[in-house]
């Protein structure tokens, strides 16, 4: 069954047992039309393949309203089926945030609506 672990980290990990062999799971993940049929589309923009190693691993850049997240699918044979590990990393820019002095924003009240960054 599916499990999840994330702790205090910035990634979600799901471990999934599938009855289908790795090649078939690979097709369901790597073929855009099949993938969209079960995974859908990102909140914003389009998914983009960052790395692919058939039939083992596919990395997908998945835009969200908070920035680009990264989904990694890792497929390995297990019994007659497959073990699939899905790791979904929260957006984080690799580049160091440039320090730009700016006027200190007024601390928003807890009930105030939070800003969302436009994509």
């Amino acid at each position: 069954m599916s499990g999840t672990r994330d702790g205090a980290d910035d990634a979600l990990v799901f471990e999934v047992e599938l009855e289908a062999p790795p090649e078939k799971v690979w097709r369901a993940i790597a073929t855009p039309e099949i993938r969209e049929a079960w995974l859908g589309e990102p909140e914003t923009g389009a998914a983009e393949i960052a790395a692919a190693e058939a039939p083992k691993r596919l990395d997908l850049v998945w835009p969200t309203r908070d920035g680009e997240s990264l989904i990694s699918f890792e497929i390995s044979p297990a019994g007659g089926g497959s073990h699939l590990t899905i790791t979904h990393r929260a957006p984080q820019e690799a580049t160091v945030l440039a320090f730009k002095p700016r006027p200190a924003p007024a601390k928003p009240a807890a009930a105030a609506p939070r800003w969302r960054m436009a994509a």
Partner: protein
Amino acid sequence: MFEADVFRALGDPTRRAVYERLTGGERSVTELREGLTISQPAVSQHLAALKAAGLVAERRDGRKTYYRIEPEGLSPLIDWLGRYRAFWPTRIERLKRILGEMDQ
């Protein structure tokens, strides 16, 4: 504050280390620097970025400034994780169903 700033601010490993050091409680810049191989101005710069992202708050006491974690600051990340923790189980069920329908 832009939510994206939280993600960006924690994306840098050193800055993250500075932030994690504050989970032990309030610290001065000097205390934060102990054990890290970065200069004091660099620590100050990371603290400024963390402050700008709403992750850290400061308190002045005479000539010293103390920093502490702003607990509300992580809520964009927590919200994000919550959103996608709810997203995946339904997608995984759909994947299983599609695998059952696909040709070998």
